[in-house]
Every structure is written in structure tokens, then in C-alpha cells.
């Protein structure tokens, strides 16, 4: 229980840290009143605008108002799109979430069996191939992988669309394949490497020898006993994973012209559209935070050793 309380407190601190960074950075960019008004605006006009934006109040008060706005999803209006930010994000979040979930599903479906294969076939051909792909996935930059996939599968082989979002009524899955692979590759690399090395460690452990001695089939030993134990370190990877997935999805959305939040974020960065920037950052930051919190809590549920160690402290 103490462990859980500590983790919750840490998440809260991190959230405050995020908000302070976003607040300081967006305020350091200059007073919105001055950014939005024409340069020849009179002093009275500037004063009136500052009052409207609240930038004439002390910083602490502004920060409190900022936190309240973020908490109540009151993000203001986009400077570029002249639309409420909430509406802008709501129109794009579905595309982003469905893409990232597709990528995560793809990783789980491929990395788990291939990680097991690499560990059981150690130093043989399947192991070498899987490790080669993982080394490539770790090193190749996502934006370049995306472009090369387009070149190969869309331009040359003309098998899949080069990008964009499926129109209503169109068959959707071909549009997901290439961007999902782009996001999945570094995650696949990290997970197969981790699964392989932690499985290799437990393949010689006493509990595995016992399971074999009990006469269980080798398949059952590997897939149930060894894999379940090897999955524990993978759970701690999830926090880093989500960060990689978020970054990867921004890049993939840009490369594949995917109408998601990542694409909106980059165009807002380039246009210095701060209401959108701070809303997207707060959203993504909170997502990363909740995911890593969930991973840690899951760890407590799955691994009783942590519960005992934390209780004894």
C-alpha cells in the first residue's frame, strides 16, 4: 500500500513538473497580447488585451489559472485554425489512438513469438535473423524507415497506399499497415531483445528444471513457465515504450500525412500556435504518465515479491 501511495505521489509531482515546464516555456515565448496584436497597437489596446488574456496578473495567479484551464479541458482557441482547441483535438484523436493501438497489437503479436523463438533457438539461424531485425529496428531512424516503406510498397510494388487516412466506406486496413510498422519497429526491437535475454536467464533456473523433471512437455515449459517469468521485466519497459510510441507516432503521422494529433502538434510548433501546443503537450504528458503508473501498479499485482518487499520497508 505504501508503495502504491508513493507511486501516486510521484506521478502527481511529475504532472506538476510537466505543467510548470509547459507554462514557463509558453510564457517565455512572449506575451500573447503582444504576439496577436499588430505592432502599431496603442498602449490602451495592449493593456486591454493583456487584461483579456490575464497576462497582467502575477505569475503564480496565472499558473493557477493555467492549471485550472488544463484540468477542465478549457484550452482556448487555436490562433491558426480559429477554432476551439478541444474541437481540433477531438477531431483528430481517434485517428491517432487507432494507429498507435494497431502498432502495439502488431508488436505483441510478433515480438512475443519471435522473442521466444530466438531464445529457444539460441545462436542458430532464427535467433540470428531476429537479432538482426532488432538491431536494425533499434538503429534505423523512424522517419527514414517510413519513407523507405513508401518507396518500396507504395511506389514500386504499388501494394499499399503511400499515406493518408481511409475515406468513409473505403477498406481501411491497407492505410494502417505502413505507418503501424513504422511505429512498431523500435518497440519490436526493444521487446524481442528483452524477452530473449530474460528467457535465456530463466531457461536454466531451478523452477524450469523442476517443471521439466515433472514431465511437462517442453512446449508447456517454455510458453507457460519461462515466458510468464520473462514477461516481468517487460512490464517495466512499458513506461519507456509509451514515450517511444508517442514520439514514433508523431513522426509516422508526419511521414504518412495521417490526420492525427501528432501532425497537428508539429504544424502548431512550426506556426507557433501556443494554445494548441500546450494542450497537446498536456494531453500526451498525462497519457505517458498514466501509462507508466499503470505499468508500475500492474507490476505489483503480477509480482508478489514487490508487495512483500514494499510492505516490509
Amino acid at each position, binding site marked *: 500500500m505504501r508503495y502504491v501511495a508513493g507511486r501516486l505521489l*510521484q506521478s502527481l*509531482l*511529475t504532472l506538476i*513538473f*510537466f505543467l510548470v*515546464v*509547459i507554462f514557463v*516555456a*509558453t510564457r*517565455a*515565448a512572449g506575451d500573447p497580447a503582444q504576439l496577436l496584436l499588430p505592432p502599431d497597437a496603442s498602449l490602451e489596446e495592449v493593456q486591454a488585451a493583456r487584461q483579456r488574456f490575464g497576462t497582467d496578473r502575477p505569475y503564480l495567479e496565472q499558473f493557477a489559472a493555467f492549471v485550472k484551464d488544463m484540468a477542465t479541458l478549457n484550452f482556448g482557441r487555436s490562433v491558426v485554425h480559429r477554432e476551439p482547441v478541444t474541437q481540433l483535438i477531438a477531431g483528430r484523436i481517434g485517428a491517432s489512438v487507432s494507429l498507435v493501438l494497431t502498432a502495439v497489437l502488431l508488436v505483441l503479436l510478433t515480438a512475443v513469438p519471435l522473442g521466444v523463438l530466438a531464445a529457444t533457438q539460441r545462436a542458430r539461424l532464427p535467433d540470428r535473423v531476429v537479432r538482426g531485425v532488432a*538491431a*536494425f529496428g*533499434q*538503429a*534505423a*531512424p*523512424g*522517419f*527514414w524507415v517510413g*519513407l*523507405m516503406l*513508401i*518507396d518500396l510498397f507504395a*511506389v514500386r510494388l504499388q501494394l499499399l497506399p503511400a499515406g493518408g487516412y481511409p475515406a468513409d466506406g473505403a477498406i481501411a486496413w491497407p492505410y494502417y499497415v505502413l505507418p503501424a510498422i513504422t511505429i512498431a519497429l523500435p518497440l519490436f526491437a526493444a521487446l524481442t531483445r528483452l524477452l530473449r*535475454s530474460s528467457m535465456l536467464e530463466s531457461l536454466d533456473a531451478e523452477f524450469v528444471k523442476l517443471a521439466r523433471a515433472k514431465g511437462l512437455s517442453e512446449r508447456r515449459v517454455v510458453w507457460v513457465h519461462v515466458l510468464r517469468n520473462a514477461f516481468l521485466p517487460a512490464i517495466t519497459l512499458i*513506461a519507456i515504450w509509451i*514515450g517511444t510510441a*508517442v*514520439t514514433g507516432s*508523431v*513522426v509516422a503521422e*508526419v*511521414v504518412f500525412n495521417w490526420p492525427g494529433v501528432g501532425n497537428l*502538434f*508539429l504544424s*502548431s*510548433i*512550426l506556426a*507557433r500556435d*501556443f494554445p494548441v*501546443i500546450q494542450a497537446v*503537450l498536456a494531453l*500526451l*504528458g498525462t497519457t*505517458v*504518465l498514466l501509462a*507508466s503508473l499503470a505499468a508500475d501498479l500492474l507490476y505489483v499485482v503480477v509480482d508478489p515479491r514487490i508487495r512483500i518487499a514494499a510492505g516490509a520497508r
Partner: protein
Amino acid sequence: MAIEQVGQVGGPAALAEGLGRQRAAERAWEGARRLPALPLAVLALFVAMALVGPWMAPLDPDATDLVARLSPPAWAGGSPDHLLGTDRLGRDVLSRIIVGARPSFVVALVTIGVGGVLGTLIGLVAGYFGGRVDAVIMRFADSAISFPLILLALLLAAVIGPGILTVVVAISLLLWARLARLIRGEVLSLKERDFVALARVAGVPWWRILLVHVLPNVLNTVVVLLTLDLGLVIGVEATLSFLGAGIPPPTPTWGQMVADGRAYLSTAWWLSLFPGLAIGLVILSFNLVGDWLRDYLDPRLREAR
């Protein structure tokens, strides 16, 4: 048994020392045998490009030649003057890749330097003093680690404008945290050892204990982690340049070259392919060298990554 051994030449102490020395020599030989020669050679080549790129480039990387624009690589029907082809302004792709090594390596070295020094010092202090200082520092580190690096860099690019400074500040702001956490863990156990206690009893000031007595014992960890991070930093820099939030033109950077080739993907595949290969090759080499260093210098770190 012990009595018999005393009679032997050199005695047990010398025997143990000899064995230890033999084992150390074996270990060194084993390490050298697995030396990742190919990745090291690749890195040496790229470092040379970063140092003396303008002299290595076969042609002027900025010279435009509109007659020879979008010329394919030499083996794919292009002219032998442009081994890897030319871009939309007729600039030589190979020369631009060679010259483009410098910004990548400058960013990598500066951020690794800043992040490395900060992370090491902060980790030393947090581990040594413990208690409240440690708690506060580690909460900050945990927060910094969970902030997605690229997003922070993009935010800074919007605020202070894209450029080398933005990239360096953004990456070092987060790089210190991972290092500090690991160093702190090492210091926690090191400070209980006798040599630290002896130094304290002898009246050595805390900063001297940390720098002279503790630091040398964590240097292996620092070197391994920073080598593994070099690849990460080069990838982040390339991604930012690709997104238009890194080092702005006219300085040629690999990420920006890949981005420039995007519009010509269906006609001039070489524009994006080769700079991307350069990025991937450098990152792969740093990863392989880092893995080897870790196994050689600090096998315990295997758990941490």
C-alpha cells in the same frame, strides 16, 4: 594444507596475485578478441568526416549544377562524377553526406558532455548525501525521464527557435537524469566501503572524497552509458532536423537531407536513402560498441538496460 602452502615458493599471497593477474590478462584478451572491429572502423570513418569533411568531400557540397540535377547514382545510370547522385539543385549527395557528419557529431559530443558531467555530479551528490537531498533530486530525475525527449525539443524549437542550441539544451535537460539515477545507485553501495570511511576519518572534505575516491569507481558505468546514449542523441538530432525543428539550412544535416528527398521519393530514391543509411549506420555502430563496452567493463549494467 595451509602449512604445506607456506613452504611453497612465493607463498599463497603471491600465488593468488599471480592467478589474479593471469585471470585479468585472460579477461583482457577475451575482451580484445571480441573487439567490434567493423563498427569501430565505421565510426572512425565518420569521425574523420566530422573532423575534416570539407577536405574529404570529392566536390563542393554547396556547388549547384542545374544541368546535372537529380542525376542518379553512378551505378544506376548516373555520371561517375557523382557517385551517389545529385539533388534537385545538382549538388553532390556524397559530398553533402560527408560534410553533414559534423553537425551530428558536434551535437552528440556537446550534449553528451553537458549531460554526462551534470548527470555524474548530480548522481554523486545524491548518492553520497542521501536523505532529503537524494529524495528531491531523484523525484526530479524520475520526472525528467518520463518526459518524451522529442516533444520537449519541439516545444523549445517553437519557443526559442530551431537551432543547435535548442537541440543541445533539450537533449541535455533529459540526458542527465538516466545517468544520475545509475550513478546514485552505485555511490549508495560505494560509500559504505572502507576506503570512503577511511578518507572521511582522515578529514578529507566531501567534494574531494567524491571526486578523488568515488568518481574513479563509477567511471566505467559513465563511459558505457554515454556510449549507448551517443546513438540515441544522433537519432534525436536527425529526427528534429527531419521535422524542421533542428539545425536550419544551409548547414547540410542528414535528417534534413532525408526530408528534402521526400518530395522526390517516386523519382529520385537516392536522395532519402543514402543520408538515412548514414544515420542508421552510425547509430548501429555506437550501439554495438556500447554493448561490447558494457559486457567488457561493466556486465552488471546488462540488467539496467
